[in-house]
Every structure is written in C-alpha cells, then in structure tokens.
C-alpha cells in the first residue's frame, strides 16, 4: 500500500519532469530556429507544456499560499442565492460563461499586428505574459470580488484605496471603451472597403440577428438553442449569397463602397443598436457571435493540429528597430502594448469582478475559472499568431501595410516590400485576391483580412481548395459578427457609465430608463468613438497605427489598476512577502505603459510621436508640399494627433495617481497608520455538499 503510493508519486514527478523538458525543448526550438520555416506544432507543444506546468504548480501555489482559498467558505452565490444573478453554478458552465465573455476579437487582432516584429517576440509575450501576468490578474481579481459579494473593480478600488482609486477606475474604463470600439470599427471598415462580398455578408448579419431575436422572443419564447441554430444556418447562407452578389453587376455596385461611407454606416448602426431594446439586436447577435466564436476557435485548433502548417515568418524582422510599416515603434515597449488581450488584458478584470463571482459554487473553482480561462484565451492568441505567420512574409506585409507607407499602386507597394527583403509579386497578390474572391488585398490594415487569408488557407487545405473564397468571407463574417457585438455591448456599457456620471449632476439624466437621457448619453458615446473611427478612416496611414497603441496603453492601464488593487489588499492583509505575485507584473506593466506613453507623446520620430507627427504635417501644410486631397484633411489630422497626445497623458496620469494611492495606503499600513478597513465579507461555512 505504502509502496505503491510512493511509486505513484515518483511516476507523477517523472511525468511532470518530462513535460518540463519537452516544453523547454519546444521553447528553445522556437527561439533558436534560424531556418527557412518552422512547424506550427513547436508553438502548440511549447504552449501546452507551459500552460500545464503553470496551472499545476504556480496557480496552485498562489491559491493555497497567497490567496488562501478556502473550500469550506460559502460563496456569494450560495449566501445570496436569488435564482437570478446569484446562483451556485457547475464549474464547467461558469468556465464556459467566463471564457465566452473574456474572449473577444482582441486576441485575434493584436498578435496579427505584432507579427511585423517576427513570430518570436509576440509568441514569447503571449506565453509568459499570460502565465505570470494575465492569468494572475484574472484569478486574483475573481478571488477578491468573490470575497466581496461580487463587487466591481471600481467599487473595490474605492473601498480598499479610497475615492480617488474608484474615480480613476471608472474614467479609465469609459476611455478604453471609446478607443476599443473605434479601433474595432476601423478593422471592420478596412475589411469591407470595396468588397461587395464582405459588405453584403456583414450587412446581412443585422436582419439575421433580428429574425433570431423575434424567434426567441415571440415565436418560440426562450428556445435559445433552436433560434441560434437557425441563425448560424442563415449566416452560412449569407456568406454563400455574398458570393452570388459579388458576381451580379447590379447588386455588386450596391455594396461596393469607400471607407468613409462604410464608417458612417457603422456609426449609424452603433447608435441604432444602443437605443433599440436588447432583445431585438444585441442579445440575438451575442448568441450568434458566441456560437460562431467557440465553433471557429475549435475548428482552427483542429485544423492547425491536423495540418501542422509551416510558419514562414522569420523569428525576428528588421522592424524591431521601430520602423515597422503597420505601426511605428520599437520592440520594447510596443510589442507589450500591441498584444494586450492574450497576454494580459485589464478588461478581463471587469468580467472577473462582475457576473462570474456571483456564479461560483465554491472557492476551489477559482483556479480553473480565473487562471484556466485566461490560459485558453492565450492559446487563442497563439493560434492567431500562427495563422498570421503561416503566410509568406511578403504577402503578410502587402495585406497589412497601409497605402500611406508602401504606396497606393500595386507595383510601388510590391517594390517597397521587396526592398525590405520580402519576396512578393503583383501577380501573386492578384492571384491571391482572385482566389479569395476580392478585387485587391493590398492595404487591408487591421488584422482581420490577413487573419482571414491565413484561416482560409488553413481551412481550405483541410476541406478543399475550391472553397477558398467561401472560407475567406466566412472568416471575415465571423470576425465582423463579434466585433459588432462588442461594439453594441460596449456602447451600451459606456452609456450606463456615462448616465452614472451624469446622474451626479442631474438625477433625471441618471435614470437608465428615461428615454431622452438614453438618446443623449448614447449619442455622446457613439459620437466619442465615431470621431476616432472617422479620423482613422480619413488618415492615409491607416489609423490603426494611431488607435491600436492607444487602445493597448488604455487596456494595460486598466490591468495595472486591477493589479494595484490586488497588491494593496495583499499588503493590507499582512501578506507583504507575497505582494510580488501581483507586484512584479504591475511593475512590468507600469514600465511598459509609461515608456510607450512617453514615446507616443514626445518621440521626435513622426511615425511614433503624436506631437512630432502634428508638427511635421503642419510644416508640410505651410510649405505647400501636400496634395490637394491631403490639404483637405490635414487640419483634422493635426488636431487629432494633438488630442491623442493629451489623451495619452491623461491615461498615464490616471495610472500614476492609482499607483501613488496604492503606495500611500500600503505605506500607511506598514507604518501602523489607519487605512480603509478591508471590505471582505466575514466567514460563513458552506452548506453545499461537494459535487
């Protein structure tokens, strides 16, 4: 008996040792490979081994030694069970809800953009950032909120730090919302630009969502699965119908538009979606996007594992020096800003302190749901990195480089990309565009189209070459569906926050059901992101160059706020020696975010610094060296660059205020002065039987 137990223990240790060795070998292989290409299985192997070890050892250590997770303690779901939002729920169900909530389009776009540095920097940051940063942040926030009846991050910041922290968290969240929606809108617009197939398919998702909404509201109330299945079938039909429209001369022109009218369409749609009842558009769209998201991620994982494609992008490109075509800025700090979701994302702390803690049946589920979900999201980001880097580097840069950088004509763009040392020809791009059913694939900045080409080529080699154009537009539709869901949901959340703030000035404006207030606050939020979307579309450098780093800075700022709250609580509760668990990722984020913000504001490089870009354009405008088309938009672009500089400084100011507040509270506690008392709810023993 005793002997077999110790045998078991040895066997287990050997298995974990083997996982560690295989993982280290795979990471080494990825890092040291200097061949023509490297198989994607190296990435998958490295990721799985790192996740397993981190989940089994680091996460367990944090829950048992640092957080002191207590299985005997009743959770808010048990104590406050009301059958509605507080419900003890099976952990697999909670995992599904939580993962569906945190995994949006972010982890697909960021890694695709970061691939301009080569596959290595983004991949390492996705793996290490998730294991030591993102998953820790999600799990700690989930734990703290669970111990506080599911209170939100903003409320916890106010309770544990003071009013300043609370206000900072609220403002930060609202700002992220605005920037995030603008950049996501821009990604959709760039995918639909002069693509009747993509545009008609994306437009079709709106009536399909309404049909599904009416179906589950009135025709068969509450039959969610049935209605969603109907919606998924209709979406696939819409993708196929888009191909027919593309070949129909009359219909074709109806959906063939420039960026600007498409952007205005997205803005009007966003406003309509924000003031319409949720059951009509938002809820059914959310069901469709969740099913499409989970299905496509699964399909992509199966395809990558079954086909084992070769990654053709080099480990590092010359653009690590900051001269990259997709966005300006050197490897440090910009890869850590570009890949936010998938490595560490502040947005997750809003989910981890919202719905999820009210569903936990037992505290022991916190590791699986908080830490585990983030590992899965990191894996999604890794797959996006693979899908972007299996393309020929020349093709990748041709699709993603904005016209303002490589030139408007195909021949000049190809010549520029060739001069960087990446082989691509005009014929190759034309053939690829034809295969995908597009007129051109040049300058489709934003990540969605190159990811779609990558996904289409992976899928089509599994399911047949003839379907290439179908898969391309399927991938575009799939991304557009959940980008638009984020756009709807984000606008609505922004509206609630704004109404919350306005309520301080006029009680009437704070009422979420008073229609004039709904329209006013929706218009303000839509106007906010609509402005950035508009500027992004008229900017010849593609707009993503400006908006994505802003989003990254804002998102990492929110992550830093969440880690500040966690660190302060650890110190206040006498766990100073473990404060590095949240303190180290916090220190890293503060370094990265502050450096990036400093460079975005003060760099003399016109492709990085906002002020430099504004001054450069003003000088060229005065010297009369701009084309008439550029002269028309120059004043708006100059104003926008200056605005972005102020916005960046605002983000950094908010971040440092929270950090100084955290340090102040920690210092006061350590020197025995009074601090806000812990808002943790007292212990109550669980009465739920173990499942």
């Amino acid at each position, binding site marked *: 008996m005793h002997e077999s137990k110790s045998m078991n223990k040895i066997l287990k240790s050997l298995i974990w040792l083997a996982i560690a060795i295989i993982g280290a070998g795979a990471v080494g292989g990825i890092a040291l490979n200097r061949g023509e290409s490297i198989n994607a299985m190296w990435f998958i192997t490295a990721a799985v081994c790192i996740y397993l070890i981190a989940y089994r050892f680091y996460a367990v250590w944090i829950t048992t030694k640092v957080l002191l997770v207590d299985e005997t303690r009743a959770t808010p779901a048990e104590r406050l069970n009301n059958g509605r939002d507080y419900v003890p729920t099976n952990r697999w169900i909670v995992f599904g809800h939580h993962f569906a909530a945190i995994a949006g389009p972010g982890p697909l776009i960021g890694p695709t953009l970061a691939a301009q540095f080569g596959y290595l920097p983004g991949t390492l940051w996705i793996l290490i950032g998730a294991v030591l940063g993102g998953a820790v942040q999600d799990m700690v926030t989930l734990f703290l909120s669970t111990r506080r009846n599911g209170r939100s991050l903003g409320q916890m910041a106010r309770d544990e730090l003071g009013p300043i922290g609370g206000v900072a968290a609220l403002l930060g969240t609202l700002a992220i919302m605005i920037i995030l929606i603008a950049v996501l809108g821009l990604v959709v617009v760039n995918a639909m630009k002069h693509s009747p197939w993509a545009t008609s398919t994306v437009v079709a998702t709106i009536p399909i969502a309404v049909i599904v909404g009416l179906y589950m509201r009135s025709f068969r109330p509450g039959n969610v699965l049935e209605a969603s299945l109907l919606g998924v079938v209709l979406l696939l039909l819409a993708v196929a119908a888009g191909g027919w429209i593309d070949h129909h001369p009359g219909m074709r022109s109806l959906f063939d538009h420039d960026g600007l009218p498409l952007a205005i369409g997205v803005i009007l749609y966003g406003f309509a979606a924000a003031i319409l009842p949720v059951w009509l558009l938002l809820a059914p769209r959310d069901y469709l996007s969740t099913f499409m998201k989970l299905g496509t991620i699964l399909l992509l994982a199966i395809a990558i594992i079954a086909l084992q494609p070769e990654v053709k992008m080099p480990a590092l490109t010359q653009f690590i020096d900051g001269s990259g075509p997709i966005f300006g800025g050197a490897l440090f700090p910009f890869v850590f800003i570009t890949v936010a979701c998938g490595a560490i*994302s502040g947005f*997750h702390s*809003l989910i981890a302190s919202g719905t999820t803690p009210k569903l936990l049946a037992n505290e022991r589920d916190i590791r699986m749901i908080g830490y585990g979900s983030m590992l899965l999201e990191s894996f999604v980001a890794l797959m996006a990195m693979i899908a972007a880097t299996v393309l020929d580097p020349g093709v990748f840069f041709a699709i993603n480089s904005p016209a303002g950088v490589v030139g408007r004509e195909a021949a000049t763009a190809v010549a520029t990309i060739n001069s960087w040392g990446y082989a691509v020809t005009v014929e190759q791009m034309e053939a690829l565009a034809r295969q995908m059913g597009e007129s051109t694939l040049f300058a489709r900045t934003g990540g969605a189209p190159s990811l779609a080409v990558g996904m289409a080529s992976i899928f089509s080699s599994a399911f047949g070459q003839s379907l290439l154009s179908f898969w391309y537009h399927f991938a575009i539709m799939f991304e557009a569906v959940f980008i638009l869901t984020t756009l709807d949901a984000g606008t609505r959340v922004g509206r609630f926050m704004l109404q919350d703030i306005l309520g301080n000035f006029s009680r009437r404006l704070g009422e979420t059901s008073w229609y004039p207030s709904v329209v006013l606050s929706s218009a303000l939020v839509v106007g906010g992101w609509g402005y950035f979307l508009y500027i992004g579309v008229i900017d010849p450098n593609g707009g993503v160059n400006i908006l994505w780093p802003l989003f990254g800075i804002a998102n990492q700022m929110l992550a830093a706020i969440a880690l500040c709250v966690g660190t302060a609580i650890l110190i206040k509760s006498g766990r100073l020696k473990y404060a590095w668990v949240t303190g180290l990722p916090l220190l890293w984020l503060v370094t990265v975010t502050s450096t990036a913000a400093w460079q975005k504001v003060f760099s003399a490089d016109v492709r990085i610094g906002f002020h430099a870009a504004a001054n450069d354009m003003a000088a060229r405008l005065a010297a009369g060296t701009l084309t008439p088309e550029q002269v028309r938009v120059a004043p708006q672009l100059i104003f926008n660059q200056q605005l972005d500089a102020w916005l960046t400084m605002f983000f950094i100011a908010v971040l440092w205020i929270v950090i100084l507040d955290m340090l102040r509270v920690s210092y006061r506690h350590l020197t025995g002065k009074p601090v806000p008392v812990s808002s943790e709810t007292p212990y109550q023993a669980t009465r739920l039987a173990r499942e």
Partner: protein
Amino acid sequence: MKFMHWWHVCRDFMRRLSGDDAYERYLEHYEAMHAETLNPPPRLSRKEFFAYWQEQKWNGVNRCC
C-alpha cells in the same frame, strides 16, 4: 446506452450554458422558495420570464475585447 448517456450530458450542458433551460430553473427556484409561502409573487409565464431574464442579462459589462 453509454452513447445516450453522453448525449444527454452534452445536451444538458449546452442548454444550461446557453440559457435554454432558464425557465425550467426559474420554476424549480419558484417552487422551492415561494410556492409554500403566504403571499407568493406572481408566477411568470415562459414569455414574461424570458423577456425579463434577457433584459437583465444584457445590462452590464458582459463582453470583452
């Protein structure tokens, strides 16, 4: 036999995850909490409950980047 068992597990999981069985769970909760009390709150019909449930579910941060 085994196959049917797994099919049911999967179906129940999907129904629970999507909220397809939300009304059944509401009825269970209602029976457990209110059926025996003196002045029970009105029992919602399937349609009423779903309208309320959906409204509540989408009020707040429930989707991320």
